[in-house]
């Protein structure tokens, strides 16, 4: 594997933040996606949705201002922005499953070339695993961005022809942002849109378990 720096988790979040259009209603999943709210570009306003019944979540609560009836889906005390609203869990998921949100950013263990997502259970892991809101969100949201490392700790590709991990949803992923690339899922397969600084498209292809389409030299990943 080439010995060159990859994007940090924060940089993946920073790049994924650029996928959020102004005014969008957005759900952020566990892991890297949860960092995105710190990296919204200037001039962009988005409304964060939480599956426990909040639209218009603001920043995390500071020490002393926490209210434990006002937490995000990761149980972290948060604040609200002006115009926020509360509702019950069924309506929160009516928003996800019913296609009312604009973008969801989820973590991932594997994404297939057809856009299948596996993100809730690692085969052989101890315990029950947990689905949470991921299947509803993946099923219904118009644009699903997955943030993850390009390969596992052992160097195996996480972008594959067919997922081998338990699935979250079929053909649900729109775009993948990794520490090496931005990749779009299209009807004709995966398109390599951007490549991390100092990496080549060929090197990214070698670390990917499915074919990547690209013309010439894809541009460098846009960070800030």
């Amino acid at each position, binding site marked *: 594997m080439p010995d060159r720096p990859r994007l940090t988790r924060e940089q993946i979040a920073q790049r994924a933040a650029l996928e959020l259009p102004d005014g969008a209603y957005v759900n952020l999943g566990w892991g890297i996606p949860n960092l995105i709210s710190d990296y919204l570009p200037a001039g962009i306003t988005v409304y964060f949705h*939480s*599956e*426990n*019944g*909040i639209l218009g979540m603001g920043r995390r609560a500071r020490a002393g201002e926490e*209210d*434990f*009836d*006002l*937490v*995000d*889906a*990761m*149980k972290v005390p948060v604040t609200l922005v002006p115009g926020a609203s*509360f*509702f*019950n*869990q*069924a309506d*929160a*998921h*009516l928003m*996800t*499953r019913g296609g009312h949100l604009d973008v969801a950013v989820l973590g991932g263990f594997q994404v297939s070339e057809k856009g*299948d997502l596996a993100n809730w259970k690692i085969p052989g892991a*101890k*315990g*029950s*695993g*947990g*689905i*949470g*809101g*991921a*299947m*509803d969100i993946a*099923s*219904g949201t118009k644009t699903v961005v997955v943030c993850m490392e390009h390969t596992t700790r052992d160097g195996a590709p996480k972008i594959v022809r067919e997922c081998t991990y*338990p*699935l*979250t*949803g*079929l053909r649900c992923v729109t775009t993948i942002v990794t520490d090496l690339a931005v990749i779009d899922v299209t009807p004709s397969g995966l398109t390599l849109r951007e490549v991390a600084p100092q990496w080549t498209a060929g090197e990214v292809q070698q670390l990917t378990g499915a074919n990547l389409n690209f013309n010439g030299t894809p541009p460098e990943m846009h960070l800030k």
Partner: protein
Amino acid sequence: MKQKIFSHIDAAIADVPDGARMMFGGFGGAGFPNNLIQALARKGTRDIFAISNNCGTRDGELGILFKLNRIRHIIASFPGPHSNHFQERLAAKEVTIELVPQGILCERMRAAAAGLLGFYTAVGVGTEVAAGKEERVIDGKRCILEMPIHADFAFIKAEKADELGNLTYRLAAQNFNPIMAMAAKTTIVEVEEIVPTGSIDPESVMTPAIFVHRIVQAKGIRYAG
């Protein structure tokens, strides 16, 4: 007229039998009926069929019931990172679980509340949760049949009740509570405050009194996770 207010929490749950199907509200530490759960633990009810988003947080929330081995089966969406008592019982095969996507868990309870006998959804198609479920194609979309989830009892948490049982919830602490209130035969609510009938503005009622059968004021444990 039947009095819904119970002055003692143990009396409010005295008739919950062994083997009861029970819903428990709460999410992310907020809106859990912790005092009712503790009372159920004291009472010693066994072989509970539980329905809840998660499976306890250490000894808190449903954790105490798993610790005491009182739950035999649970329908849940996200057991949670601190559901150690549940995970131990699961490993020992003392409890079984049906994992359900969170929004589908909500809708299956709503279907029970609404007198619907099931519904089709694309959520879970091609995944483990589709196993054994009827699949068909509607509007060109693969979907699976999901069945209602009923319960004998719902234990829920609200901020305020009037004497009739009209409820309001605080911030994001409503989560599953209003849904479960509608889906169970007998809904028992613990509240911070009981106010005279008529003092909650009708426009502000979040769960209408028709869904609430027993009310108990319980200020003991607010956050147990």
